[in-house]
């Protein structure tokens, strides 16, 4: 892929700038991943102190967003990048917004976890949340991997996972409604659980967005609000004649 080659600039400083800002985005992604893992652990194991500590990580994430944003503006102003470099910067500006939102949702889960920790735990010990959490964490991880490798195929594969997340979300939703109808005393807990699950579903959406930016960065195609099958077909037909 010609876009993977970031070292083609005559100006070495420009290369370094691009490489550094990319590394910063991925480092922010690393913090977000750790934050998400922490908030999920606190939810599943009922560790309220851990849940509250997530808020501190979210502050770091917010700080990094501002910092990377400034860096991108500086590059746009001083280097006037074109073509794939411009796409990289645009994709980065969008990616960090989604990463920051993932951080916010993670913080929300941590807050709910510290509230749920004092309530009675259900018999299945939030098994389905654990399952959904695993899928969503994997999505975030794979999306960032695709960003690091500029791997459009991997991004497409990951974006497709969003459908599984939606299905799981629906299933937990129905289950919560059943619990609430069976025993109204669980309504309070079930509502909090539903908020947490809702946050996880949103995180899945943000991860999908990041995948879309990766595809935009590599192919220069905006695939938002397009069916994934069409995107796949389109990319394949583009690849077809000149393999």
């Amino acid at each position, binding site marked *: 892929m010609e876009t993977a080659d970031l070292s083609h600039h005559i100006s070495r400083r420009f290369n370094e700038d691009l490489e550094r800002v990319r590394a910063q985005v991925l480092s922010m992604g690393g913090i977000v*991943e750790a934050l998400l893992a922490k908030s999920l652990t606190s939810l599943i194991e009922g560790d309220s102190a851990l849940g509250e500590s997530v808020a501190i990580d979210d502050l770091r994430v917010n700080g990094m967003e501002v910092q990377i944003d400034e860096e991108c503006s500086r590059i746009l102003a001083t280097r006037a990048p074109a073509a794939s470099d411009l796409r990289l910067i645009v994709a980065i500006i969008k990616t960090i917004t989604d990463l920051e939102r993932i951080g916010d949702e993670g913080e929300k889960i941590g807050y709910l976890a510290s509230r749920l920790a004092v309530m009675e735990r259900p018999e299945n010990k939030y098994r389905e949340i654990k399952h959904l959490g695993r899928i969503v964490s994997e999505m975030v991880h794979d999306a960032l991997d695709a960003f690091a*490798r500029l*791997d459009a195929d991997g991004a497409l594969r990951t974006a497709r996972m969003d459908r599984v997340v939606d299905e799981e979300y629906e299933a937990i939703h129905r289950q919560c409604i059943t619990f609430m109808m069976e025993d109204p005393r669980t309504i309070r807990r079930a509502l909090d659980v539903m908020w947490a699950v809702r946050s996880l579903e949103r995180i899945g959406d943000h991860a999908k967005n990041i995948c879309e930016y990766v595809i935009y960065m590599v192919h220069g195609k905006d695939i938002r609000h397009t069916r994934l099958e069409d995107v796949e077909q389109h990319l394949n037909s583009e690849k077809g004649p000149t393999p």
Partner: protein
Amino acid sequence: MTQSLRTAWFLLSRLMLVLAAGMLAGLMLGSLWVGVILSLGVALAWQLLNLFWLDEWLRHRNRHDPPDTPGLWGDVISQVVRLHRRKRYHKERLLQVLRELSQSTAALPDGVVVLNALDEITWFNQPAARLLGLRGRGDRGLRVSNLVRDPQFRDYLGRGEFAEPLVLRRTEPDVSLSFQIVPYSDGQRLLMVRDVSRQVQLETMRRDFVANASHELRSPLTVVTGHLELLLSDDALAEDVRSPLQEMQRQAYRMNGIVNDLLDLSRLDAQAREAASDEVDVVALCAILRKDVLARPGHPAVALSVETHARLLGDEPGILSAFSNLVDNAVKHTPESGVITLRWALLPDGAAQFSVADTGRGIAPEHLPRLAERFYRVDTGRSREAGGSGLGLAIVKNVLMHHGATIDVQSTPGAGSTFSCLFPARRVKIVAEERTDPPNE
């Protein structure tokens, strides 16, 4: 020498022969010179042809056999063939060694990643790919921190020293990885990755066992001490029973102390996070410690040397237990005529130091490195008698570790020992001097 002489003679004789044949033919044709020129021309053409063949063969030497020519050209060709064969042999041997080396590295059970000066991946083996989720050749040239994004790993990579490996725990799936960086020539670095899930699990099990066992021991002990106290408070108790009962009570108290220390330690072990940052008034703490000592029978003198009112940022109960353990040790090993000095001072670089100096018997140098080991005793008989659990310094070390602090022990046998706790500047808060005279005088 003879070989080359013979070759030269052979060449010369050949040339003479050709020349003679040319002259003979020239004489027969009537012109000597035409014959000579013709013969020389034929000889030259022959040499050129041979040269052409040699060149042709060298160009395609891997596909064709060497040309079969007699004479000097044959010698030259066979020499070239020999050189060529030797070179190929060495090359193959070198390749073989290289292949074996890379095969053995690839077969290592631990993951190995080679990083260049920019932390880009140059090479990795199969286990590294499995443990870190690296893929194929495409990942070479990427920065390792772009793919292994854990913030702790990033900090570790950016740090200059790698004496201790970094252990990271992942929750999904539950795997613990140990990372170790080994720098070598030209800023290149070797990243070793090992799966230590089993060790971490065993360590957790051991900790849980100690914690549970101590907890289980505590309740029966409470019953025993309670009944002993009740019995001893009875004035009608026969004298011959009283003394053994008192001994039983002493031992039960000692056991209680050990169990409490064990519980403290296992709590500290389980607490992997950095200690809290509450403000601790060390000056007030020193006063309390001093009062405690003065309340004991047969205590040595206690001197306070407060040089700063700086507050310590830490976990107060932990700090108190660490400091009182140090003071306890000092009291145990100092005679009534001795002096214990508690000192709290700021160092020039912003760090702060709490030290306990005694004028006791001191510790022989060979014991110093092992002092903080659990249940290590310098003088087995004596410290049991004094009621120590053997866990005091282990607790001190653990508490200090959570505060990023270190302990230093200076001791001269016969003259006394000094235990100093060194707290880093980030754990110290300077406050305005509130009072100038030492408190609680």
